[in-house]
């Protein structure tokens, strides 16, 4: 496997390098032209003029990424990342509207596939002076957490996050309508996603995950049956800032964004199965007949962010109402949750910033949840000790150091759960060789004692990666 992939990757890498070098040369030439104009101290340089006056803007980059698992993993590929990506961005700015499009042509060697991925395709306008509208495929973000999301229920791409792609790819786009209205000191955001857009969660195609039904890590890939949902998602935020303190309240109506529900995929058996699984005495003989799905979920929450001492303090909470399991007694559907976050960030020294977060995830109706997972249930291999803690806690720390005139940055992000006794380290560095060329390297390292906990289940997914990006 690995021999073959090295041979298939090598020509790709050479091709990429040649392309890169030629584009760097092209960039140098452009720079040289620009520098001449600097020398005579004038702004009359055509390139800049054009840049400023043209309503059309084109840009993009090419990126080569390679990452490998640091140990044997049960997934098909030994690579966690192996791709060549070409990004194209185009925008048009008119007086009354704005058009933005961007997307990637991605050759993904891990899944041996080449595909076009549209990241943005939007029309934006302000039909009234106090209203902004953005319609189309877009990335949406809000909330105060760093790599922890409470009220931000917009789609995430966990596969990208685990594989070492740029942070940009942690946020997946959705086809949505976003309205933002402004009145006095308040802003009202409303986002409607007509067709539910789930996270790009782990399926086993690239990364393995723990199955409570199998009692071990699985990598089902295409065999991971997930029943798709086509309903709406509605997200709301009302925000204001008073004396430098930012306040926001949030609401969400939709579905869990990962498939945290299970049911029989065979409809004739579904009713009996579901009735039995709820009672905790079902014995499904064949896992193939169970499919995961996205149960309905509504939430509300609030956040605040303010300067405190020399740094920044933020806190946020969210209440997740798992509508289909409002009593918490259905073993096949995730219970309601209360999520709480507090964080603090401070620059400790010049170009050195540290931040910490404390995150609490309380599973509500815990007793009902416990009772729905009886020891005797053969569906769940070793039920009791695999239960999610009632109060799952996570501490995070980020250290960021920039040097060489900010051209070289080191980043360490660490998740540690004192309740699950597991952790996830994300060290990385980024070197900006020039405005065109940058190089990044990093790792995703998982540690833990038990096979099933949130981070520990990914121990075999631990990987290291490299990326080289050239802007054009």
């Amino acid at each position, binding site marked *: 496997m690995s021999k073959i992939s090295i041979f298939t990757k090598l020509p790709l890498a050479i091709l990429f390098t040649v392309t890169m070098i030629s584009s760097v040369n092209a960039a140098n030439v452009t*720079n040289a032209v620009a520098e001449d104009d600097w020398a005579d101290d004038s702004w009359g340089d055509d390139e800049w003029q054009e840049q400023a006056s043209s309503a059309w803007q084109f840009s993009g*980059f090419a990126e080569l990424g390679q990452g490998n698992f640091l140990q044997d993993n049960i997934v098909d590929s030994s690579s966690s990342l192996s791709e060549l990506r070409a990004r194209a961005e185009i925008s048009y700015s008119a007086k009354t509207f704005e058009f933005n499009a961007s997307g990637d042509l991605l050759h993904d060697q891990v899944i041996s596939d080449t595909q076009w991925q549209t990241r943005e395709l939007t029309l*934006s306008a302000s039909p009234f002076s106090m209203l*902004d509208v953005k319609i189309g495929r877009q990335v949406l973000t809000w909330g105060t957490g760093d790599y922890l999301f409470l009220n931000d229920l917009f789609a995430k791409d966990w596969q990208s996050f685990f594989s070492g792609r740029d942070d940009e790819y942690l946020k997946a786009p959705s086809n949505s309508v976003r309205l933002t209205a402004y009145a006095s000191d308040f802003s009202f955001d409303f986002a409607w996603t007509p067709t539910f857009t789930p996270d790009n969660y782990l399926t086993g195609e690239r990364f393995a995950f723990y199955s409570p039904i199998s009692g071990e890590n699985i990598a089902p890939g295409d065999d991971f049956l997930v029943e798709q949902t086509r309903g709406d998602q509605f997200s709301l935020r009302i925000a204001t800032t008073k004396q430098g303190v930012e306040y926001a309240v949030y609401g969400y109506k939709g579905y869990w964004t990962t498939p945290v529900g299970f049911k029989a995929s065979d409809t004739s058996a579904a009713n009996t199965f579901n009735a039995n699984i709820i009672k905790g005495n079902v014995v499904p003989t064949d896992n193939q007949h169970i499919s995961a799905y996205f149960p309905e979920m509504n939430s509300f929450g609030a956040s605040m962010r303010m300067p405190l001492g020399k740094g920044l303090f933020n806190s946020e909470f969210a209440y997740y109402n798992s509508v289909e399991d409002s009593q918490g007694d259905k073993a096949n559907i995730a219970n309601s949750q209360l999520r709480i976050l507090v964080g603090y960030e401070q620059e400790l020294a*010049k170009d050195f910033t540290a931040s910490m977060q404390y995150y609490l995830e309380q599973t509500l109706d815990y007793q009902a949840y416990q009772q729905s997972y009886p020891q005797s249930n053969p569906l769940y291999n070793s039920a009791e000790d695999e239960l999610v803690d009632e109060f799952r806690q996570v501490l995070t720390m980020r250290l960021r150091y920039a040097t060489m*005139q900010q051209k070289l940055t080191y980043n360490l992000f660490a998740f540690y759960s004192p309740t699950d006794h597991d952790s996830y380290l994300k060290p990385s560095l980024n070197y900006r060789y020039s405005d065109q060329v940058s190089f990044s390297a990093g790792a995703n390292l998982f540690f833990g004692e038990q096979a099933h906990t949130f981070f520990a289940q990914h121990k075999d997914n631990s990987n290291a990666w490299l990326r080289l990006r050239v802007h*054009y």
Partner: protein
Amino acid sequence: MAVKTAQRQLKTQSAQRTAHSAQPSLIIEQVFIMKNIRFIKFFTAVNTITFIGLLLGFSQFSQAADLTNTDDIIKQANMASYYAGDDGSAQARMIIVDSNGNKQLRQFTILRKDKQDLGDQEMLVFFSRPTDVSGTVFRVQKQVNADDNRWLYLPALDLVKRISAGDKRTSFVGAHFFYEDVSGRNPAEDNFTLLTTTDSVYRLKAEPKNANSVEFAHYIIEIDKQTFLPLLVNYFDQQGNNIRRMEVLKTTKIAGFNTVVHSKITDLTDHSYTEMQFRKVKYNLGLPDNIFSERSLRTAPKAWLK
């Protein structure tokens, strides 16, 4: 409204006061403004005061005496450097050259509005180059009596990231200009001594009140006597080595305000440097308060960025 106009003219006047009167065009401008002031005088009671203020201003100008009070010099320099007009906009570009001669470019548009002269300010910086930072917006609420509030908008993630106040003497987007060089160092941070007054400049020595907060032991600043623009600043370490230099390479008078349009900061320890140029500088545009908000991070106020 008329009061506001008069205040603006007062500012314009005070900016002009600092210039040589020998230029005929300037005299014409002054006469024009005088006429305007007289015109307004008939309509508003407060203008009597404004008018007197202007006359006083003129009398100061006509005396053209050297200032001896360091506070006055520094205030005027701060005013001329960072508070020209009630608001302003400009396009800027920087060329960053490292010690090996490798170059990087940054291009951005700045919008600024003063809440009060020599006081708090609102600022927005819209990046257009290089392409990987295009669309990034930096927002600052400069506060004289508290740490600044700073936000960064990253369009690829649709993320409004708040940045902790932190060290203002860190590089602004990889350039040799510090945040403080862009938004202005608070004069209250330093103790100033007037060293010499030449025909053209005031030379002052500044020592930080909190030596641990900065990388220099002191700096020597040369302020143009006419425009009050600092034209040369040399920073020295404990051993007296000149470690950093800011020099103004070109100034132009725009809408009555003497404006630095080309400057350079050199790291004298390795001779790397950054040059910054401005174009399309405008003052007193009447920027509305509400554009200095989170809205402008996501939806750029195009009308003001032309």
